[in-house]
């Protein structure tokens, strides 16, 4: 767990702590936190900032009836929580963050691997928003993915295995943020497949000469 080397920018953790980032990037930050105790501890302290600011506001009187209303709602609560996810899709993995497994198992349509190229599969998951496409990517061992250009922001967390690009090697738990205009070519590690979770804001552009052939497959498709 201590091998995580790539973290979200601190401003992103602050926005996460304050609850100000969109669902899809939040999913990626949360998946990173599962692997990264350093960011979990930073987050706890950031939450202390929020709590201090909250407790210093001038209190506003609440309606007289409010307490009774809360108590009567409490009295009507069902005795136990039975909202467990029952189905398990074989794409889930006990070492993944719980939230990722919930996304996989709770998706309205069961996520399925779809081949993008010889080396790359993608499986979309449902996240109920339409700003980002959230998907799992599987790069096979030694796989070469197309060199691509990012039209919009993309956040990626490595869930299993590792891959590299021109900049670095990314291992389990590492968090990458690609800005519009960034170009990179991820390569799967030789020693096994690599599975990543990513949230992509806008279509990526392939920069290889035959990349246009894959363009239709890469159109953003939030669900």
């Amino acid at each position, binding site marked *: 767990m*201590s091998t995580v080397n790539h973290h979200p920018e*601190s*401003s992103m953790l*602050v*926005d996460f*702590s*304050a*609850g*100000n980032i969109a669902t899809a990037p*939040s*999913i990626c930050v*949360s998946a990173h*936190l*599962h692997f990264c*105790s*350093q960011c*979990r*501890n*930073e*987050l*706890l*302290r*950031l*939450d*202390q*900032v*929020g*709590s*201090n*600011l*909250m407790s*210093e*506001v*001038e*209190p*506003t*009187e*609440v*309606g007289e009836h*409010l*307490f009774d*209303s*809360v108590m009567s*709602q*409490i009295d009507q*609560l069902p005795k136990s929580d039975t909202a467990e*996810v029952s189905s398990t899709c074989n794409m889930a993995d006990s070492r993944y963050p*719980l*939230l990722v497994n*919930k*996304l996989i*198992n*709770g998706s*309205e349509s069961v996520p399925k691997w779809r081949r993008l190229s010889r080396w790359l599969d993608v499986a979309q998951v*449902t*996240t*109920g*928003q*339409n700003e980002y496409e959230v998907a799992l990517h599987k790069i096979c061992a030694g796989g070469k993915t197309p060199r691509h250009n990012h039209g919009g922001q993309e956040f990626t967390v490595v869930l299993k295995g590792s891959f590299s690009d021109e900049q670095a090697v990314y291992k389990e738990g590492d968090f990458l943020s690609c800005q519009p205009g960034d170009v990179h070519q991820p390569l799967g590690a030789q020693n096994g497949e690599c599975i990543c979770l990513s949230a992509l804001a806008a279509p990526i552009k392939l920069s290889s000469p035959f990349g246009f052939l894959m363009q239709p497959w890469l159109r953003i498709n939030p*669900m």
Partner: protein
Amino acid sequence: MLGFTIKLVDQNEEPSTKTVLLSTEKRSDQWSMLLVSVAETRDRRAFSQLFSHFAPLLKSFAQASRHEGWFPGLSEDLVQEVMIKVWQKSASYNPEKASATTWIYTVARNCRIDMLRRKSNTQHLPLENEDFWHEADEDTPVSLMRQKRSEDKVQSCLARLPKEQDEILRKVYLEGKSHAEASNELGLPLGTVKSRVRLALQKMQILVAPEFRDEVL
């Protein structure tokens, strides 16, 4: 003579600072104890004391929100939702990890996001916002002390932040503006907003310079 005067002032000031610290410590412990007794014995009196203290704060917190789609009419709904969650989830509260105030803040933030998400979602998301959060794992006695120290540090530093840093933190945490939105509103470059926040966090010793991170944690 001058030295003597200074010494006298020091002596006078020290006890009063201590008293203030002691009383805040006691106060926060009181809420934590009440919360624990709600969890353990479903103590309704303790819950009503928590309610009297936190509900008005939560209402102000809700009213401070400037999220898109949020309106003041939702404030008491949020208060109710948070307090019901506090009752329901109190068993998961661990007083060794956070003060009751911090824990209730996280419940409030999560409820606020869930309410906004419920309003704006067109489709189904199989998650609740609390699924996004992990418990911090500093749970050894040494870390517990560190945790308390960091809460105190945050509190005392927040009170002394320069206005421009304080203003942005409030926008981010209370109004719910992202760094990017705050930069738009204040007419400041995004880099400036980020560096003001970063400075504030460094003062509170929340952000450790990356090269020292491993040593400290």
